[in-house]
């Protein structure tokens, strides 16, 4: 394990220049050299939040404290996942012209795409923290633990990106199926409602959804000010490593076969 991490580190170093150039490219393309481009990627989650809070506050948030923060935490996590995995899914096909001509490590394209999403997420996170302050939630040192679910989320998103990008090379309808999947996932992630309203055994089922686990962790730390138990910590890591493991295996197996399907 340590050996393979070392090996990976060496590879990253060897391809550092490529990685930086790819990140630059993805970033520039994403924002198309306009100020509004960057602003838009922040405006869009804000608009979603606004609409959601207008619509749902009456239904779910009437007697709940910090309902806007509750919504925001869910939406923040979900948007990060969506943005990152959509980018990841396209990363191989979008670079087909390069992959079929030059022998390069294919995961570089996915990782660079993820950096762009991560920057976006970081900016939204800052706004989130502003909202938290404005909403009168007291800051405390426990909030540093936010890094824990975020780090695992990054790993989870990369892992899902691996899997999706491989599937997308093999099956071109995956993008439409994934649209449906993410929509269902959004409704199943308790972004705007409370799971406490469900019977206990149903509540447990929510933990099968990795996004729900990450969202719950963030809400617990920020809104309720308590550190989730060990099982939640374990689940955060487990889902991330499982996704990454499966993704890495697929890449390993299909590394030289992707070409045929591009």
């Amino acid at each position, binding site marked *: 394990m340590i050996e393979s991490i070392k090996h990976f580190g060496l590879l990253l170093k060897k391809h550092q220049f490529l990685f930086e150039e*790819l990140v630059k490219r993805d970033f520039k393309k994403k924002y198309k050299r306009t100020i509004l481009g960057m602003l838009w990627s922040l405006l869009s989650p804000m608009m979603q939040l606004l609409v959601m809070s207008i619509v749902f506050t009456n239904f779910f948030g009437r007697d709940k404290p910090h309902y806007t923060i509750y919504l925001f935490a869910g939406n923040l996590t979900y948007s990060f996942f969506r943005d990152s995995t959509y980018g990841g899914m396209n990363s191989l096909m979008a670079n087909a012209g390069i992959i079929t*001509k030059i022998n390069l490590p294919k995961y570089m394209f996915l990782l660079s795409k993820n950096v762009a999403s991560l920057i976006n997420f970081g900016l939204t996170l800052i706004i989130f923290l502003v909202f938290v302050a404005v909403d009168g939630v007291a800051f405390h040192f426990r909030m540093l633990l936010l890094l824990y679910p975020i780090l695992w989320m990054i790993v989870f998103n990369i892992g899902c990106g691996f899997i999706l990008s491989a599937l997308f090379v093999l099956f*071109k309808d995956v993008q439409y199926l994934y649209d449906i999947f993410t929509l269902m996932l959004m409704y199943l992630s308790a972004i705007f409602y409370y799971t406490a309203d469900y019977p206990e055994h149903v509540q447990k089922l929510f933990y099968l959804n990795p996004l729900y686990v990450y969202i719950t962790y963030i809400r617990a730390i920020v809104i309720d000010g308590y550190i989730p138990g060990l099982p939640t910590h374990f689940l955060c890591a487990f889902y991330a490593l499982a996704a990454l493991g499966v993704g890495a295996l697929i890449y390993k197996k299909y590394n030289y076969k992707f070409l045929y*399907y591009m």
Partner: protein
Amino acid sequence: MPKIELHDVSVSYVVGDFSTVGLKDVVIAKLQGKHIAKEFVAVKNVSFELEEGELLGIIGANGAGKSTLLKVISGIMRPTTGQMAVRGNIASLLELGTGFDGDLTVKENTFLRGAMLGYTREFMNQTYKSIIQFAELEEFEDRLFSHLSSGMKSRLAFSIACLVKPDILILDEVLSVGDGAFRKKSEEKMLEIIRGGATTLLVSHSLEQIRRMATKVLWLDRGNQVAFGETKEICDRYQDFLNGK
């Protein structure tokens, strides 16, 4: 030790129209017991050895497996069976002009391509000026790549790729690029690399060019190795074969 050794190398790959195949289609085909993908052997039992400084000309009709063979040697594809050894760093000029990004400027594309070819940032900083000069694109540095003409694009691609001193050079119909003047310049540059001792593989439909440059010739036909050997002998046989058609 030979720079390139191939023993009984075969390459098969999966073909089919995958651009429209979806998960649903595959599931349905599986249920009906059909196969969407067909195995296709593009290169069959090819064997040859090349010493340092040799130039191998690869000839054959379209679909003979020439490009596939080059892809295997450059490491993009793997041989399905057989052994292969390639010693030294490879510069591969396969289908120039693809893989650039139209939304980026010429300068940005130059650095990106340099990074893909495995150059370092220092190297690119040092050689960027001479790349642009060689490509004669000084006035276009900050233009979007998509605004260049196709001749300019391949000039840039050629200039980035040929600045290394590779041990092995792989050329797929790219010995000459661009208009008259650049054509001459690019061929000279290639010859300079080849004379510098690089082992070269050249795919060309110009038999005259092969005769002039190659030290060995490999003739492929529908994936099969028809002949491998001295330039004059094989080229004469190939010429007779073409005339006999």
